[in-house]
């Protein structure tokens, strides 16, 4: 892909994100059944949770590729993806907490959804501890790869199953100004926000991978792509 083309995509993403933010606050109506304007946070909270899940999935795939092919670039991708997944998971927790305060009166309620996301953060936190605890490059990459695959096994369980098999305060149909489902205006901006956050993740991921590559090169470890 040409550099100019990539630059155009980045500028378009910046404009797109600004439009989404402006529209979410000034154009879309808040969902019914929630106090004040609090439901608008879902245009940010859900895409962050989605990007976190996507990043953990990508980390698991890249780790598998590394374990099969032993290509260092796959490990860079796995590490970068896990780091960004952790960041977006943390941001989803913070935005969810703000929503909880406005809706249920407390930042933290030990709701199954809140508990499971904390467990997820701890599991991926341990991934970084593992990476920093092994000094040998090759061993570190293998251990982290195996751990990333095992860590992702918990993601469907903690994100999708646990909150649904127990009673939870977490709403399922929040972005809903007029009954079940989502009205067209809300849906368009919701999907727009999802796309913008996904593109932002891709951009950040590329930067992080390039950064790791340079850092690795500076340490004198050479590789080919």
């Amino acid at each position, binding site marked *: 892909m040409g550099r100019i083309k990539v630059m155009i995509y980045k500028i378009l993403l*910046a404009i797109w994100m600004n439009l989404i933010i402006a529209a979410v606050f*000034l154009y879309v109506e808040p969902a019914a059944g929630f106090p004040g304007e609090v439901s608008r946070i879902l245009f940010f909270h859900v895409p962050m949770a989605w990007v976190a899940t996507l990043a953990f999935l990508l980390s698991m795939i890249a780790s598998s590729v590394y374990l099969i092919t032993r290509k260092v670039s796959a490990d860079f991708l796995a590490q970068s993806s896990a780091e960004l997944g952790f960041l977006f998971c943390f941001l989803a927790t913070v935005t969810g907490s703000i929503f909880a305060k406005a809706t249920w009166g407390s930042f933290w309620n030990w709701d199954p959804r809140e508990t499971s996301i904390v467990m997820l953060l701890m599991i991926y936190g341990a991934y970084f501890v593992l990476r920093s605890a092994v000094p040998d490059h090759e061993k570190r990459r293998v251990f982290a790869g195996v751990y990333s695959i095992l860590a992702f096994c918990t993601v469907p369980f903690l994100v999708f199953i646990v909150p649904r098999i127990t009673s939870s305060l977490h709403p399922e149909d929040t972005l809903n100004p007029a009954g079940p489902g989502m009205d067209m205006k809300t849906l368009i901006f919701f999907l727009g926000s999802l796309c913008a956050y996904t593109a932002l993740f891709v951009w950040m991921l590329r*930067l992080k991978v390039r950064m790791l590559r340079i850092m690795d090169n500076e340490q004198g470890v050479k590789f080919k*792509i």
Partner: protein
Amino acid sequence: MENGLGFVAAVNLIIWAGITLYLFVLDRRLKKLEQRSGDRDQAAGMDVHYEK
């Protein structure tokens, strides 16, 4: 604008503009580092390929 919604939107926009600016600056710095590292490797006769 009710309930300071415009203010919240403005704060969000400023934060997003800051993040975008930071990412653009980071992108440029990485490009420079890649070029510098690439030039050095070339001078040392090493075969290292960076993603463009």
